[in-house]
């Protein structure tokens, strides 16, 4: 909503406040002023001048040489406009004037002749092209004959105005009118209001002899008022009205249309003027449209209708799409002499149907949709009649022909001083509350500290006690509310164990060298299942897709975080960021249904992506590319911190390197995988050798237990025995370690591989793995024979199970 301050000053005395001060007060009290626009600079040196003579420029056909009387002097001005003529009163920018766009007017010579200023068109004075009335769009602007010469031209064109742009929340439909804004500002500033009066002189002839009204469904159209105005003379509307319309962002057309628009802006009540003769009927019938019924609207579009929409008909055909737009067939034009004026109340929902389906958001529909003031409907019609009489030569026929089922009773809301103060935390007195209600122009009955407030019909948003709390609070001033802290029983806030653990896991990854990413949950249908962990794929019947995606790229919920991480890595590589070590913790969305009927289950995953160099310390010749074991080391560290015994098994998985991928198990349950992505997939994403992991974080966190007891520091010495074995090359280190652990007995505390060798001195197809076994007896010093016995047991088991022999 654009509010012209000059217009607003007709209702309320605002001269002691600057536009900025006013805007600040309005914003703080409830309606955000999103901007203040000044059309022109002040003192811009633009005055009214009389063109005393106008001749062709001696050296240029298309230019006119004018002598213009600007009051204290006569200026010679060269003007290129076609419509300039002697006797006109025009807007003259004198030398020194600064026009919008920082256009400075100077004395100049044009084709050898002096020019001392400029005769201006409205566009040049700062009025947007789209608001300039068509009759003056192609040339200079001409003032009415009775305009005084030499006076400042800007106020005459309302260019000294400041326009406030109000950002209205949906509840404040009441401020979609100048009167509504006037009530608001009067309440804020506690100033008296001057409201317009709808004084209409009606002629003897009666409207009911011309028109009748029939409404099919009064819930959709509780009020329809028809006025008949004869002897209309179509002409431009008065300058002040055109100025206000332009300020509000509406292009002036002619006096009849301008008056309906003016009243729409002033009262917030949309009106519609039909050409009575073209309406071609003595009866208005308001009904739902019929299936496939058609209407050509004022914008020349043919609209195909259905019973979802309400239409105004002449008993036969639709003449207007109710509340949205009039029909072309009954449009007011230069031949119009009799006007049928409509002032009605239409149901918000049925208006919204039409404006939404036909994408016709008009000044009219936006007001009906939000709910207009029922009390102002008839008055707005009268106000328009008053103006039509004055500015369009209209004769107002007696009587309003109407169907009236509007409920104008004011809602009652009870408030009390104590309840208001309890809710706000304030100590506002009963007297002050009464004062606030008076400022708002709300009437009330007051008994001790209890108020029964009658809410004016213009404030449809106020229904319950809480709504009145807000009214009192905002006029009292949110700034004046005290700062307090909740007085309820203090409870300790905090994170749950799971939330703490999640933070721990994230911190771990970060200290291990990984940077966190946050990627989109919505990906393409193709990418959604890519690299998803097998236990996820087993549960997911279908990927979950949006009904109406905005793009294929973000159409489907992910089953794995990895595809979007691959895309991020790809983005980085394309920008020469080749060393990437990322992790992400987030949900994937698993539905067991083929057709979705319930929410998918959301599973928390921890994923990682590493590529490029892991360690780069070149001048000391230390450089290590990321490999499987770098990533495995990170995961092993995590599981150690969580005291979880996770095992790794080689696996073949789609899109993963067949020889460098491991599945992870915890308590015999699959918890994810780790490995190198298939070089072909890497190529598809323009990536080099890339490693990823994907873990079931829900289950990992679920299995975590806080260590219950202190683990005593050993008091007795440990013994280490090394064992170099030769085995077939397909024997896994994990198998050897498992065998040693199982065969070695309780004394074996740790086994680790310290060498792996293949090549010279070994048979083809063989490899050597050297392990170090750590023995400890927590109760006593180890005896050699115990260690030896265990060692021998291990050897023979290794021989039996894995065909391993000691390397000689």
């Amino acid at each position: 909503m654009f509010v012209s301050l000059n217009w607003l000053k007709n209702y309320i005395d605002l001269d002691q406040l600057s536009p900025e001060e006013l805007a600040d007060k309005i914003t703080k009290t409830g309606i955000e002023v999103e901007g203040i626009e000044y059309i022109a600079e002040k003192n811009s040196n633009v005055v009214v001048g009389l063109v005393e003579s106008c001749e062709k420029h001696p050296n240029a056909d298309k230019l006119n040489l004018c002598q213009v009387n600007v009051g204290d002097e006569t200026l010679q001005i060269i003007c290129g406009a076609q419509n300039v003529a002697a006797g006109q009163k025009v807007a003259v920018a004198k030398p020194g004037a600064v026009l919008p766009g920082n256009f400075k007017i100077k004395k100049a010579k044009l084709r050898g002749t002096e020019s001392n200023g400029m005769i201006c068109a409205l566009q040049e004075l700062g009025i947007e092209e789209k608001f300039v009335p068509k009759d003056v769009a192609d040339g200079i602007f001409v003032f009415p004959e009775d305009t005084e010469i030499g006076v400042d031209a800007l106020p005459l064109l309302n260019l000294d105005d400041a326009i406030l742009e109000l950002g209205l929340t949906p509840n404040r439909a009441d401020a979609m009118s100048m009167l509504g804004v006037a009530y608001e500002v009067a309440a804020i500033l506690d100033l008296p209001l001057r409201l317009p009066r709808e004084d209409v002189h009606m002629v003897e002839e009666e409207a009911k002899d011309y028109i009748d009204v029939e409404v099919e469904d009064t819930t959709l159209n509780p009020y329809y008022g028809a006025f008949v105005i004869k002897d209309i003379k179509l002409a431009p509307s008065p300058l002040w009205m055109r100025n206000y319309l332009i300020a509000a962002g509406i292009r002036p057309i002619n006096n009849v249309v301008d008056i309906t628009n003016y009243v729409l802006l002033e009262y917030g009540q949309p009106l519609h003027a039909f050409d009575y003769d073209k309406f071609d009927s003595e009866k208005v019938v308001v009904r739902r449209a019929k299936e496939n019924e058609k209407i050509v609207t004022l914008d020349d579009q043919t609209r195909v209708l259905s019973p979802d929409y309400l239409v105004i008909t002449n008993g036969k055909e639709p003449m207007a799409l109710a509340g949205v737009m009039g029909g072309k067939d009954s449009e007011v034009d230069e031949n119009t002499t009799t006007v049928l004026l409509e002032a009605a109340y239409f149901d918000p929902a049925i208006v919204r149907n039409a404006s939404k389906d036909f994408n016709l958001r008009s000044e009219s529909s936006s007001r009906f949709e939000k709910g207009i003031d029922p009390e102002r409907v008839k008055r707005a019609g009268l106000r328009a009649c008053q103006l039509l009489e004055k500015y369009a030569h209209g004769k107002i026929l007696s009587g309003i022909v109407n169907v009236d089922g509007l409920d104008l009773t004011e809602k009652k809301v009870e408030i009390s001083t104590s309840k208001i103060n309890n809710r706000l935390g304030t100590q506002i007195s009963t007297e002050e509350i009464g004062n606030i209600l008076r400022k708002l122009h709300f009437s009330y009955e007051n008994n001790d500290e209890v108020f029964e407030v009658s809410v004016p019909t213009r404030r449809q948003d106020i229904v319950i006690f809480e709504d009145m709390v807000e009214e009192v609070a905002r006029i009292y001033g949110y700034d004046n509310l005290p700062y307090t802290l909740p007085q309820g029983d203090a409870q300790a806030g905090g994170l749950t164990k799971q939330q703490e653990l999640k933070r721990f896991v994230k911190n771990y990854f970060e200290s291990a060298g990984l940077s966190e990413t946050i990627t989109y949950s919505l990906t393409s249908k193709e990418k959604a299942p890519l690299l998803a962990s097998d236990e996820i794929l087993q549960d997911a019947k279908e990927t979950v897709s949006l009904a109406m995606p905005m793009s294929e790229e973000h159409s489907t919920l992910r089953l794995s975080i990895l595809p979007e991480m691959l895309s991020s890595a790809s983005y980085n590589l394309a920008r020469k960021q080749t060393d990437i070590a990322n992790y992400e913790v987030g949900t994937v969305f698993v539905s067991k249904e083929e057709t979705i009927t319930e929410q998918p289950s959301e599973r928390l995953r921890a994923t990682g992506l590493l590529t490029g160099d892991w360690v780069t310390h070149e001048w000391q010749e230390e450089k290590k590319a990321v490999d499987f074991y770098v990533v495995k080391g990170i995961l092993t560290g995590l599981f150690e911190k969580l005291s979880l015994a996770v095992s790794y098994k080689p696996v073949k998985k789609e899109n993963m390197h067949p020889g460098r991928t491991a599945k992870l198990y915890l308590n015999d349950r699959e918890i994810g995988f780790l490995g190198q992505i298939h070089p072909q997939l890497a190529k598809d994403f323009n990536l080099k050798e890339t490693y990823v992991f994907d873990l079931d974080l829900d289950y990992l966190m679920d299995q975590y237990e806080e260590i219950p007891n202190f683990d005593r520091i050993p008091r007795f010495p440990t013994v280490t025995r090394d064992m170099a074995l030769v085995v077939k090359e397909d024997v896994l280190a994990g198998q050897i370690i498992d065998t040693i652990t199982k065969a070695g007995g309780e004394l074996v505390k740790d086994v680790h591989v310290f060498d792996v060798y293949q090549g010279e001195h070994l048979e083809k197809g063989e490899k050597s793995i050297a392990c170090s076994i750590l023995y400890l007896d927590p109760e006593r010093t180890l005896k050699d024979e115990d260690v030896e016995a265990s060692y021998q047991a291990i050897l023979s088991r290794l021989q039996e199970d894995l065909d391993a022999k000691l390397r000689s």
Partner: protein
Amino acid sequence: MKEKLQELEKEALLKVNEAKELKDLQEVRVAYLGKKGPITEVLRGMGKLSKEERPVIGELANKVRENIANELDGKKSTLEAIELEKQLENETIDVTLPGRPVQIGGPHLLTSIVGEIEDLFIGMGFEVREGPEVETDYYNFEALNLPKGHPARDMQDSFYITEDILLRTHTSPVQARTMGEYNGEKPVKMICPGKVYRRDTDDATHSHQFTQIEGLYVDKDVRMSDLKGVLNRFAKEMFGEDREIRLRPSFFPFTEPSVEMDISCKVCNGKGCSVCKKTGWIEILGGGMVHPRVLEMAGYDPDVYNGFAFGMGPERIAMLKYGVDDIRHFYINDNRFLKQYHKA
């Protein structure tokens, strides 16, 4: 003999003094104090001396030996120190060469912001609650006083999966769920951070996925001044003690009265600049007193309980705090962006 010894002493001390290296000293030691050295020689000839002279010369010879030995030891440590100094000199390295880099990652900027806000509200007694990102229409809209047909829940604004299931457009459903879980029987004091989704075309200021943190406090006798106090404390801790806050009336279907909170612009200190659109204020969050319908639907008696709620966008806060100029930075995950915010 006496003269001889004195001469030898003089000679030896001179040589000790002239020694440049440890091996020179060793030569002097062998030459003068060794078994074949001149002092031993002198002592060997003592047999020829008289009984009276013998102890005198003996004593003198020992004294000479002792003096030379002392001098040798002294010189030795001097030379050793010089030698060590020389050796260390040769071990000199270029301390300006770069050290071995330590690979340390870090959190995403949004995680840091969310964590900071969580900790701040935890300090004020709030718990942190989470909920599903794919929600039912009931929890996302209806339970929050947004009945079907309400303009704010236009199909165009949300990502629906079915008519009844959609990606949550805010984290408020977590509030509705928590209140439902508490069965209308005890106070609720919670914040709920999380991802939310809206049908917006991604550009510098819009993202179809973003983060939200909402807060809710429901108890008996909650006052609007409590909301003001809590938000004030949040704003000062988050943006600095010197920031001023102001509340403005606003409108949300789930609160009444509703507020929007601004903080004074850091760039211009409230004087007005392009960042704050010349107003001196920057909008930071919305909130209000929980609408009685919302309480009622969640099973709380609005005649007994009331409360306040608020919601904010960590992306916006990060953009204001760090001057991040494009919301897409948060989701593109450019390495250089991610690593900028790993600092303490």
